[in-house]
């Protein structure tokens, strides 16, 4: 593991909410970040089926988008969400880990634009997608 990834991983794992949900940063480089979140019964939004709540998917998407912004070479410091839109395509399969992959595809002096996809074991069939705008900290 690179030092950069190790530091970034420690940073993500120091976020109380991300740590509480067991989020792990598995990849982060030049504006791309990948974060996994294991299935957890506390996250169930539909007790009849055991499907996790959309809110939990939002949490991993937001964390992953933020990590992508922070890994972009044009962004010097931290970041905050300006706006985030999530589209829910299907229910996540109960028992499966959610993997979010975010790409920071454009950065201006003040704003970073990000797209993200969340999948479960069926990686070709996204559970949700997100688009967002994030702040860029000054140089």
């Amino acid at each position, binding site marked *: 593991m690179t030092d950069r990834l190790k530091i970034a991983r420690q940073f993500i794992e*120091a*976020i*109380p*909410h*991300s740590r*509480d949900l067991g989020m792990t940063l598995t990849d982060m480089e030049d504006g791309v970040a990948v974060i996994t979140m294991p299935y957890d*019964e*506390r*996250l*169930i*939004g*539909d*007790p*009849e089926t055991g499907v*996790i*709540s*959309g*809110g*939990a998917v*939002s*949490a*991993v*998407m*937001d*964390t992953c988008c*933020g990590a992508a912004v922070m890994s972009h070479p044009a962004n010097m410091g*931290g970041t*905050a*969400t*300006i*706006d*985030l*839109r*999530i*589209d*829910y395509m299907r229910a996540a399969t109960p028992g499966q880990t959610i993997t979010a992959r975010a790409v920071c595809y454009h950065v201006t002096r003040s704003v970073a634009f990000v797209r993200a996809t969340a999948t479960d074991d069926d990686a070709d069939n996204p559970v949700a997608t997100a688009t967002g705008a994030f702040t860029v900290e000054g140089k």
Partner: protein
Amino acid sequence: MKRPEPVQIVKQRRDVALRALVSGVPYIQYLGMKFDRRGDELTGVLPFDEKLIGNPLLPALHGGVTAAFLEVTAMITLSWSYLWEDIENGNLDFDPVEGMRLPRLPKTVDFSVDYLRSGLPRDAYARAHVNRSGRRYASVHVEGWQDKRTKLFAQATGHFVMPQRR
């Protein structure tokens, strides 16, 4: 004219319905969310907890927590408004001990959050407004605040697919 029902009966029926809607969802319990009810008006309440922090340096609420809090408030308020007539008319199976068997919650299609300022490490409140609720789809707007009602920290709009009646 029919005599109005005793106030305790009306309140109890509403509270049992609200409890049935909220307490069965593990994620709402995990966030520690509660709902205040005044007549048919609901306010989502998110008491502060350390595990909800997203930026330990500021500190600030996690953006995902803010999104989840607003989404749950929107979804419960939508469900509540859709069930209201049936609750009032006593059309739902009602048992003070067993509670109520309610229809499924609406499904989120999309949810768009506008982050206006960072969420402070204290309690948050949210109220949703159903823009339109049709037979199949609904549009809901929701506002979140902390200390001051007019000083929102986030707002959101979402679209939902309505559950089919069972």
